[in-house]
């Protein structure tokens, strides 16, 4: 298992390293730069969508997406991040406490 940990660590480091190394190899136009930035945004938003709606390949239940949605609406109304975090977590936790999952 120790070897597995070391391989996972080394592989993860190389994955993290590959982005900036690739960047150095190619000269980027302003257009390409904008697309790259959007690329990271696309992945991040897809991560939000999947982690809020799908858990282990199946529907996550109502509590989780409801919490993320409450956080998202608050963020859209420009609430501070601390409030977004607390409101999202509290919504999900309370729904679960009430038996809605």
């Amino acid at each position: 298992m120790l070897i597995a940990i070391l391989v996972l660590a080394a592989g993860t480091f190389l994955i993290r390293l590959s982005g900036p190394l690739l960047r150095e190899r190619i000269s980027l136009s302003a257009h390409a730069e904008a697309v790259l930035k959007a690329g990271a945004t696309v992945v991040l938003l897809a991560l939000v969508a999947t982690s809020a709606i799908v858990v282990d390949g199946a529907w996550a239940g109502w509590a989780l997406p409801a919490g993320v949605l409450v956080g998202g609406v608050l963020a859209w109304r420009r609430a501070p991040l601390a409030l977004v975090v607390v409101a999202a977590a509290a919504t999900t936790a309370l729904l679960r406490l009430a038996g809605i999952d």
Partner: protein
Amino acid sequence: MFARLTGLVGRDLLRDTIAYSVGIAVAGASFGALATAQGLQWWTTMAVSVLVYAGTAQFAALGVAASGGGPLAVVATGLVLNLRHVPYGLSVGHLYWDRWWTRLLGTQNLLDTTTAFALAEGDDLRRAKIAYWTTGAGNAIAWIAGNLAGIAAGRQIASPEAFGLDAALPAIILALVLPALRDRSTLLACAVGAAIALATSPFLTGGLPVLLALAGLAFAWPPKEPEEAQR
């Protein structure tokens, strides 16, 4: 010293970093508790957290190991989940590509959230760097301290789900990317990408759907040069 730190970092970012770090500390504690409950020695757990340093992959790898997966399955699960760091590095890598040690630390500091915080600063390079390092420092301290607390507490810590923590982390990222969605091309790419990721996630192993989302870029920016068509 605290006043100087506030002056450099800015009150808003400092407040956001603290709020975010509290969430990470709780997540770190539950990782430490779960790993200990599964029979990992404290130093093995800490080695994972410091060397791999990717929460989602660590939880997934632990889950695979717990359900009887071999070392190969553990490594594969973790690495596929971490592939999303390639587009992150492409978009924010220049922020820390200065000296050898900033490259080293910055590479290990490449996370969902540090990327999102840096991107949220828009075109201001100086602010993006400050955000990347400030939230990274908060994440590192909170993750390690949380791990240690979780190991010490052992099984007594409830699952992160009980605190709604699984909603808090996506909500943070959502809040950080929202401003970028004002750009119509980005919004279109994100909408198509999220739809692709959701449609494919029941069938694919974790980590791949969010990469397929990149295909959404082709809808917003029709390929001009062959080099860009691949992204």
